């Protein structure tokens, strides 16, 4: 990850990772999630869903930081993300503060 200024505690902090779930057939292709994903982890696909809309697809799953913005903005309850718990030895489990 790029930083304007490297935080002092960058060694200790862990960027949360999210797992995005897209319920494609509910999507009406509004593009809110794609437009407002702060990490650019989503794009519109060329695929058609059952209703004939283009649902989003994930560009790179590792980009998701589980901010849930897509989930909250989606008017169709068609996308959500869950926090991936990946404890790694020697690393602190949670970001405090």
């Amino acid at each position, binding site marked *: 990850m790029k930083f304007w200024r490297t935080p002092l505690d960058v060694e200790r902090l862990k960027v949360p990772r999210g797992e*995005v*779930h*897209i*319920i*494609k*057939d*509910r999507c*009406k*292709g*509004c*593009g*809110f999630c794609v*437009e*407002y994903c702060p990490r650019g982890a989503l794009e519109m696909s060329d*695929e058609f*869903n*059952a*209703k004939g*809309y283009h649902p989003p*697809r*994930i560009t790179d799953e590792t980009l998701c930081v589980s901010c849930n*913005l897509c*989930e*909250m*903005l*989606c*008017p*169709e*309850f*068609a996308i*959500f993300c*869950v926090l991936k718990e990946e404890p790694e030895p020697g690393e602190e489990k949670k970001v405090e503060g």
Partner: protein
Amino acid sequence: MRADAPAKPAIEHPMESLLRMDRIPHIWCPTCGIGTAVTAFASALEENEIPLDSVSVVSGIGCTGRVAGYMKLDSYHTTHGRAVPFAVGLHLAKPSLKVVVFSGDGDLAGIGGNHFIHTARRNVDITVICVNNFLYAMTGGQVAATTPVSANTSTSPYGNFEQPFNLPLLAQSCGAVYVARWTALHIRRMTKAFGEALNKKGFSFVEVIAPCSTLYARRNRLGTGLDLMKFYHDNSEIRHGADPNDLNIGFQEKIICGKFVDIEKPTFLDSMNECYGKSLGEKYEIYEGAAHA
């Protein structure tokens, strides 16, 4: 996600316990903002740990009027403009319920305007959420009491020349104890406002400016709901505590958002109990509502 992946993921959308999933997909158009307001409302209920069985949603008629039908709560879909008085009766019959009105601007400020102002005046302890998309959407995009001047609707085809309501000012001047306005893009602030409104004792009001793609955006050549969301991003200003007189919304002009009123005042029932208690003394049997409450 691969193209052949199953349409429904193994784990459920976190909102599913709060929605009538057998009725989803809903009827709202692509890029409509009502679904986003529903998500924020559901999040507010969860974040504030409000016992869901105690929540009742009352809606009138219109696009937003359909909210009651999608929320897995005690929900009432009433007639056009009458959600507020229905909610007043429901609340007074069983004050332990948390009664929330989800209404559109046509429903609430047009046909239901009289109920809105009087319920605010009486400070009846209900929460009113108004999704304002600037026109009557369900019937095909007619001019509303909230349509900005010069906006084109199907019944103002040469542009609207009537002055619209400033809803936060209306609510505040009638006596609401909590008044806030957010756009559909201010998702976290909207959620917070819903939580505050739900926990507020008295008449609380939150206006949500939401995109209507099919009618408002199309007729006014503003693109889609996504373009309106981008417009909100660029043109809304957060001004907590702003003078409600300054909250008029002009056509494609700045939208001032924020929390404008947050005061304490005795509710309708507080005042009634006090008055009767004073006048009747021990003879007053304090009103408790339904026997099984």
